[in-house]
């Protein structure tokens, strides 16, 4: 089936991008491989018939947030000499994998106990803009307003932190 093949392709790309993010020395290479992860995750959302989140993932995450991060990495003009020396990186990676493994196996056991369910694309405009928007403004109105306050706070915080002038000191 086509959906299974697409899932395998997107999943492998996502895992490869995440592994690249962890292993690359320079953050620019890491950011580029993380973009691959984000785009393949958008493909997985489309396979799960989440149309609006698919578009949001591409536009907001892979587009806006990652371009902000890449912009800051380029803005700081990081040379390979400026990077922290990580001689013991592989040792730390193996150690942290040993730490994380029990948690992961526990979660896998939980997932195995869940009932099976199909992933076929469902109709009825499931996950479309209108349906999710109606739900957002009916059942989730208060969390939505709280998120707007959070965005305002982070806007003011970013201006206060990064826009500081020397004369104010």
């Amino acid at each position, binding site marked *: 089936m086509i959906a299974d093949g697409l899932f395998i392709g997107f999943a492998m790309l996502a*895992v490869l991008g995440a592994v690249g993010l962890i292993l690359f020395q320079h*953050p620019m290479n890491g950011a580029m491989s993380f973009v691959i992860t984000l785009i393949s*995750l958008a493909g997985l959302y489309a396979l799960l018939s*989440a149309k609006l989140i698919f578009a949001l993932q591409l536009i907001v995450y892979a587009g806006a*947030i990652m371009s*902000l991060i890449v912009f800051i990495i380029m803005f700081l003009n*990081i040379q390979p000499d400026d990077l922290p020396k990580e001689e013991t990186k592989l040792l730390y990676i193996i150690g*942290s994998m040993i730490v994380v*493994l029990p948690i992961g196996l526990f979660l896998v056991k939980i997932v195995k106990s869940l009932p099976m369910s199909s992933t076929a694309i469902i109709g009825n405009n499931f996950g479309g803009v209108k349906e999710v928007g109606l739900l957002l403004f009916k059942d989730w109105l208060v969390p939505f307003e709280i998120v707007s306050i959070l965005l305002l706070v982070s806007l003011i*915080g970013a201006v206060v932190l990064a826009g500081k002038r020397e004369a104010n000191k």
Partner: protein
Amino acid sequence: MIHNYLLLSILLFCLGIVGVISRRNVFTVFMSIELMLNAANLAFITFSRMHESMNGHVLAMMVIAVAAAEAALALAVVILLHKHKSTLDTNVFSLLKG
């Protein structure tokens, strides 16, 4: 079949934790946190498909908004830290050490 999505989400989350623990570059640590947020998003969307209700989609939108706010603030902090210490090593950022 839907279990594979959840297993992928667990794998990505664990890779994010490994990145946060093992790396010392502040940008890589930050992007590993974003990776964990994305793994949680994938789990939300998968459960949403499983129960055929769209509440998970709304939660995923909120997570994306929180990630955007976090990116704006964290990058401002990174610029300030780079201005003061001229390094990206998280081991050097120990201002709060007693």
